[in-house]
């Protein structure tokens, strides 16, 4: 039986990198007595995979990992057992059963992610936010009105020119933040800082300090619409 855990990452935990968050959850599983399955062999490891790594410095309310269970545990018990052993800055928000097939794993199905980007008074702290500059509404419209938004994207081997426009599914001002909805996952992947760097460069406001916050990670359902990964599973009673 497989389960999907959704968690939030905030506060000082934004400084903990992806690999260390994985280590953190491995230890948390043991502390919480989650009946997680192991691989075989001399150094067995937990069957656990994260949907989409989160960069250092970014906070999130929609992070996902999938695990395999050796026995059933109710969503309610799992959430409360885990939250009892969490540190401040990581909370489990949901725990649902997902289909067993490999193609249902979070890593495979991730297709998009949404973000909020906040302008800051300075890079020293993400606590002091500034209102969006008044002209950004128009600037964003103009930015998106370009036929192509080409950037130099670094790959493992070289740098190449990519048009990121088709990967920006949505970008609009919303109260004190910019809302971004971007192609994410193994097929197409666009990071929010690349979009914002390109945008700031376009507006000539390169110096603006920003804070990034991931809102959720999505897959496409059969009808082709985007749904949060947690909606792809069902509550375990």
């Amino acid at each position, binding site marked *: 039986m497989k389960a999907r855990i959704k968690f939030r990452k905030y*506060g*000082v*935990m934004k*400084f*903990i*990198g992806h690999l*260390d968050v994985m*280590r*953190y959850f*491995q*230890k*948390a*599983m*043991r*502390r919480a007595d989650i009946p997680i399955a*192991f691989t075989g062999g*001399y*150094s*067995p*490891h*937990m069957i656990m995979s994260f949907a989409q790594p989160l960069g*250092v*410095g970014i906070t999130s309310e929609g992070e996902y990992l999938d695990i395999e269970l050796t026995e059933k545990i109710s969503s309610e018990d799992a959430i409360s057992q885990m939250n009892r*052993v969490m*540190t*401040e*800055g990581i909370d489990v928000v949901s725990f649902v059963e997902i289909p067993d097939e490999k193609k249902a794993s979070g890593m495979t199905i991730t297709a998009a992610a949404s973000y909020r980007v906040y302008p800051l008074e*300075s*890079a*020293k*702290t*993400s606590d002091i936010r500034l209102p969006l500059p008044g002209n950004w509404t128009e600037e964003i419209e103009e930015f998106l009105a370009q036929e192509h938004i080409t950037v130099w994207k670094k790959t493992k081997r070289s740098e190449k020119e990519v048009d990121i426009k088709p990967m920006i599914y949505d970008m609009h001002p919303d109260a004190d933040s910019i809302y971004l909805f971007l192609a994410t996952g193994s097929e197409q992947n666009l990071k929010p800082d690349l979009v914002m760097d390109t945008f700031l460069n376009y507006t000539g406001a390169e110096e603006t300090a920003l804070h990034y916050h991931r809102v959720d990670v999505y897959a496409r359902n059969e009808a082709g619409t985007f749904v949060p990964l947690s909606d792809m599973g069902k509550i375990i009673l």
Partner: protein
Amino acid sequence: MRKLALTDDILLKIEKPARYIGNEINSVMKDKGSVDIRFAMCFPDVYEIGMSHLGIQILYDMFNRRDDVWCERVYSPWLDLDKIMREQKIPLFALESQDPVKDFDFLGITIQYEMCYTNILQVLDLSGIPLKASERCEQDPIVIGGGPCTYNPEPLADFFDLFYIGEGETVYGELLDAYKENKANGGSRKDYLEKAAQIEGIYVPSFYDVTYKEDGTIESFVPNNPHAKATIRKQIVMDVTNSYYPKAPVVPFIKVTQDRVVLEIQRGCIRGCRFCQAGMLYRPTRERDVEMLKDYAYQMLKNTGHEEISLSSLSSSDYSSLKELVTFLIEEFKGKGINISLPSLRIDAFSLDVMEKVQDIRKSSLTFAPEAGSQRMRNVINKGLTEEDILNGAGQAFEGGWNKVKLYFMLGLPTETEEDMKAIAELADKVARRYYEIPKDQRNGKCQITTSTSFFIPKPFTPFQWAKMFTNTEYVARAAVVKHAFNDQLNRKSLRYHWHDAEVTVLEGVFARGDRRTGAVLLEAYRLGCLYDSWSDYFDYDKWLTAFENTGIDMAFYNLRERSMDEKFPWDFIDIGVTKDFLKKEWERAMRGEVTPNCRQQCSGCGAARWKGGVCVESKN
């Protein structure tokens, strides 16, 4: 939410920001307004090293059990942050509250190896605490040192207000109570130091005067304050079962050196190897009750979520309930994906059987520490291991499927000859020959015998404390003798040889047996930019040489001189239980190549029996 001492832009710029944010599982948060004493506990090296240290975890737990104390942790900022803190004048802070160390009542520093001494000065400097104890004022924290290096605290005497000599579990309570009382009575810093000086095991260096003879050796070491004791007695916990031990140690976010549950099964060692300081300092050997260890193993794994548990002691094979404990750990935890690691085990049928159960034979290697190549040399150092033991152990292991062996030796031991050096390579070759005795179709390819040598450093409170050291050139020449001998061996293609750095060795030698005057070198080396000297990438020998030159301190006086049997040593004011007479006798026996039986075979009257406990009373129960 907690506010951090460092701003986001700094944390996102430096390596591993997790070193500085605290918030780890099982770290202790308290309300600073509701405690009387704030204690900053420091390991003066980078976080990953400091967090791996068991002693701090024990004391952290012990202090925080008191409602009136909040103990927090401090480590050396890594070089990237060190630079930023100096440029931006950011004071060093403790991880939990993120408050400046300067605001604390105590700064406790554990001193585990000589090459961290400049990092101690870094910690004081970045905290904004005057480096010299004599320059501190009423508001500065009381700087207290503990750990193995404090058995010769003299090179650090100028930088510490107090030293705690011995095991931390015993008189810290008294020391903290005295502090509270003094504060309540409006007493001064000096009043407190005088109160502390009256507590067993506490050494206040400023309360002593040292005079030197014309030849540079110590003439007298006497108290200059009526409250100071002439002799400081080491502190020791006799009942190690019913003492402090953390059930929920702090779990780091990043991978640290010791990323596992550590179960200390005993203190001390019965063996009496003559080079080994720990073997003398922690006498008598005291074992923890096996039922307590089983219970702690279970609880510590549960509370940390670690995937590995390791036993800790100087010589695990000598723990009398080892079989019971190891069997329990395997049966209880192996099926739950918990790795069991068993360092410092003697290689015999039992340990091989255990290792087969807990390790992947193809990947793991076996370790032997014969320490010396020839039997004559092993008798001098009183290492009970014989060539037969090694070859039998290796043989059994090879037949069990292992093909990798690591061998550890020391070079530069007292009375060492060229034959002794060559014997290191010969012994490695004999181990390889033993492997190739196995028929080809039954063995697992080639064997790999890796030999490492380090240079012997005489330590205080060992029978070898009188021994002389050698120059760098001589050390390198000795390693070259071994290297050449390796090239002459039949199985040289299966043998690897590594040797340690000689430059670090001579510095460690100076500070291991140094007196108060060597403190000036430390200060000068730090001013010249020496830091993280235990990290080979950052160790700068030339700067150290300049520091010796600038301060007029002669390295040869500390390292190359044969000390006379009646010389007064800088550490003679400390009483570790083991007597100087016993050490002298052991030195003489060493010179004659005579072996001394271990504590379980026969009591040799070292002096530790005055505590009336541990191995000293075992057979009499």
